[in-house]
């Protein structure tokens, strides 16, 4: 029942830290890698960790309310999470967080905790948003323990990783 994960992949761990002083861009893949489509966020993080970007990359498996602690001190943040809104599986929703609140009510929470959009709105209410925040929601459907990501979700993860790589690499 205990998985001996390598140090870099512990829950909440940092997947890739740039060699130089910590940069001000952070990419967070949110989700549980063992729960089917909920692996979408972490899989984007893993794809980007090896891309040698001028950014820190993390996997976040804890609740949404803790995100504010994770992104503290960063100027530009990308969040990636699996979402459920009824759109076709593999749909990529993108939200650039500005003045207007995110449409969090359209998205289900997978637990009693906040979904990623609600976590952002909580941070906004507390004045804890980074200067620039983009949220990618990848539509998932299957979240049972031990299941694998649907192919549409895995493909969407590649698309999101490519998009972030292009934006950060510049």
């Amino acid at each position: 029942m205990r998985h001996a994960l390598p140090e870099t992949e512990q829950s909440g761990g940092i997947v890739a830290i740039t060699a130089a002083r910590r940069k001000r861009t952070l990419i967070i893949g949110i989700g549980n890698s063992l729960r089917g489509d909920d692996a979408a966020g972490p899989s984007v993080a893993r794809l980007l960790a090896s891309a040698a970007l001028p950014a820190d990359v993390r996997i976040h498996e804890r609740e949404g309310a803790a995100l504010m602690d994770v992104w503290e001190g960063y100027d530009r943040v990308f969040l990636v999470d699996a979402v459920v809104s009824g759109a076709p599986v593999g749909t990529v929703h993108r939200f650039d967080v500005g003045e207007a609140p995110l449409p969090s009510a359209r998205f289900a929470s997978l637990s009693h905790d906040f979904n990623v959009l609600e976590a952002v709105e909580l941070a906004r209410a507390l004045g804890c948003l980074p200067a620039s925040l983009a949220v990618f929601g990848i539509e998932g459907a299957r979240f049972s323990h031990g299941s694998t990501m649907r192919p549409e979700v895995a493909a969407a993860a590649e698309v999101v990783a490519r998009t972030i790589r292009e934006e950060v690499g510049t």
Partner: protein
Amino acid sequence: MSTKTMKVDYLARVEGEASLNIRMKDGTVKDVQFAVFEPPRFFEAFLKGRRAAEAPDITARICGICPVAYQMSSCHAIEQAYGVTVDGTLRDLRRLLYCGEWIESHALHVHLLHAPDFLGYQDGIQMAADHPMEVKRGLRIKKIGNDIVNIVGGREIHPINVRLGGFYKAPARQRLTAMLDDLKWAYDASVETIRWTASLPIPEFERDYEYVALRHPREYPMNEGRVVSNKGLDIPNTEFEQHFVEEHAPYSNALQCALDGRPYHVGPLARYNVNFDLLPKELRRVAESVGMKPPVLNPFKSIVARAVETAYACGEAIRLIEGYQTPEKSSVTVEPRASTGCGCTEAPRGILYHRYKLDDLGVILDAKIVPPTAQNQKTMEDDLRQLVPENIGLPEADLLWRCEQSVRNYDPCISCATHFLKLNRVEE
């Protein structure tokens, strides 16, 4: 003559999935159902054939917010079966781990799940916009609780460091003492929270509850104690099943429990009423100064009791860490034998009972798990039977909200309540 049904299809700000159905006729409540529709999870079934050493890890998966409670109840049950005692530093470490869980569970519930009700906000996010200081305080207290669980348990969610006989690796003293400044802040912040929760608009409501909690001769209970009530119950945990019986109501996927046929109330308010004298003097003084002198029979004051317990756990964590020396061994030896054992510990939401029957190789032959939310279900429904007629003059939306707030007094954990063995359906 008119019949009316009021429903909350999907209860918000509770862990898991449940709905509320209230059927009324001519202004009287005919039927109340706290209907859990989260699917049953059959843990008691698939524990059979597993090794006893796996029980702490498997049962921890019943719940994401109270895994420590499952690990503690299962360890104590199996250790009782094997005749093993864990005391001294390792006992203190288990208590410290439990303090971490109480702190994070209570801080989250008080600030983000329950307080919005008292202040008239639909959710914690809307409340946060107007009360950022209190919400930030709650989140920071919660994080400190998570940090304790991380250091002692090895991981914040589903700790990996707990084993029969103790731990896989006891933390070094300096890792714990590094937390002391944060814990001192958290203690003061929790005392502020006691005053804040007591100042919230608290609905008038009282019932003559039978409060059931653990009782230990020297300490506010977490891992050990007899099972007692404010109405004369006083038994060792080995007699639990002679008095506490679970039944399956047809409308719910969660079992409901009764004490000698009667509903009863477990959780922070029960512990508080039964064990008030064991709280430190300073906390008793603060609590009494805000109207919490026992007996406290208003379930809406459970939010204050949770704040008191949060402060207690912070203070207790400080005491345990200050007295801690890194032990030479992280666990005691455990030898299996054919046996039966039970454990009953105080999860954040109330007593959590485990019983295991084991063979001589340490394989689980039979398991029983009774979580606190299953034990509170009848009481939650009975509260509504009284609450609804008392508030019948309110507009329906407000009345329903008051009912939800009442359910949230129990901080129900529905994932825990749906773990059981058999699902008996009666189709009419």
